[in-house]
Structures are given as C-alpha cells and as structure tokens.
C-alpha cells in the first residue's frame, strides 16, 4: 500500500511542531470528505471526516478545515510526532455516487527529530 515512486508533495516538519496538509478537491458538489493516513506497507487508516455542512471538525490532535468557496480541505496535526510520518490522502464522495470515494494523490509527511 505504498505510493513509492509517485512524485508526492513532501512536507517536512520538526517533531513537536504543528503540521498543515492541504488538499484541493475537484467536485464542488461533493458532500463528504475523509482524511486517511497510509504508512508504508499498510492500508489507508481513517483519521477524520467532515460533511459539507460544516467548515471545521476536531479530533484528537487533528483538525480538518473545509473551505467550499475555494474547494480546499486541510488537515492540521498538533504537536507532530515521529509516528505521524506517513502519506496522507484526502478523499471525497462526489454527490450522486452513493458510495464511491475519490482519492487525491497524497502528501508525504516527514517528521524530523
């Protein structure tokens, strides 16, 4: 389950700092969004989701912001830890498709000590 070889945008963050990972989505009618974390050799791991009737949602150490005007989604990770190093994907559910998730290309987060 790796995106090895894909030229992913990479974000390097020092341990303890906050991380902000951005995603531009394509379908203005999408009504549901998820952030996934994918570690090397593993499947996507659910982090947090948000519906289009919200602009912010908080979880444990993570916050998702949704700006529908510019079709932009961001994931904020507070006090980034080495275990946060992974590829992060946003996924959207285009309205009109009952179940399909469309994934973005991902951002690789590297946490430096």
């Amino acid at each position, binding site marked *: *389950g*790796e*995106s*090895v*070889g*894909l030229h992913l945008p990479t974000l390097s963050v020092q341990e303890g700092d906050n991380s902000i990972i951005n995603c531009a989505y394509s379908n203005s009618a999408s009504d*549901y969004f*998820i952030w*996934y974390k994918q570690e090397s*050799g*593993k*499947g*996507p*791991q*659910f982090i947090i*989701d948000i519906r289009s009737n919200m602009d912010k949602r908080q979880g444990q150490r993570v916050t998702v912001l949704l700006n529908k005007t510019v079709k932009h989604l961001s994931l904020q990770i507070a006090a980034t830890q080495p275990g946060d190093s992974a590829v992060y*994907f946003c*996924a959207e*559910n285009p309205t009109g*498709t*009952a*179940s*399909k*998730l*469309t*994934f*973005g*290309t*991902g951002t690789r987060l590297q946490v430096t000590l």
Partner: protein
Amino acid sequence: EPEVTQTPSHQVTQMGQEVILRCVPISNHLYFYWYRQILGQKVEFLVSFYNNEISEKSEIFDDQFSVERPDGSNFTLKIRSTKLEDSAMYFCASSRTDPWAQYFGPGTRLTVL
C-alpha cells in the same frame, strides 16, 4: 478495536489465471468495498456492495471481476483471467453506513507474471 482483515497478504499468479482475494469486514458493517492501488498511483475505487448486490462499480470493474459474500463474514473479489496490468495492491473496506467512514484492510499485493 475491530478491523478489516485480508488474505493472502501477497499473491503471485501467472497471466490468465484466476485469483480470489478474501476479506473479512468489520462484523457490524453493512457496506463493503474493493479498491486498488497500482504502485505509484492513487487509490482507485472498484466496487461497492450492499445487501448482497453491487451498489456501484467503476469502469475498471469489467466482466473479468466479480464480488461475492459467500457467508456472513467473508467478502471476496475474483479476477477470472488476470492480466499484467492487474498487478496492484487490492484493498477491502467496510462501513457501517454508506459511504461514511470506510475502514480499510491491510491489502493484498497481487503480482501477475
């Protein structure tokens, strides 16, 4: 914490052979999905399944693919006659309600020679 499991973790097959990839979704989930990720590319939706029927499928999911829920716990993806381009990681996912919060398994790496 309940999780989606998949077997085998790695399957090697000859072109033209049939393969069956197996998944055990989370026990109280009602919706089941297959995705694939070709090395270096995005996660792509293949098919969703609910109430013993396909809910939605992508253009990738052609006549060579089929899904089945043979009993109360397993969910399988069959590829009848594998092609080289079927080589990928195949992920099973499940959700309690559609399409929210899809939880992914660790994947099966399929290598077609």
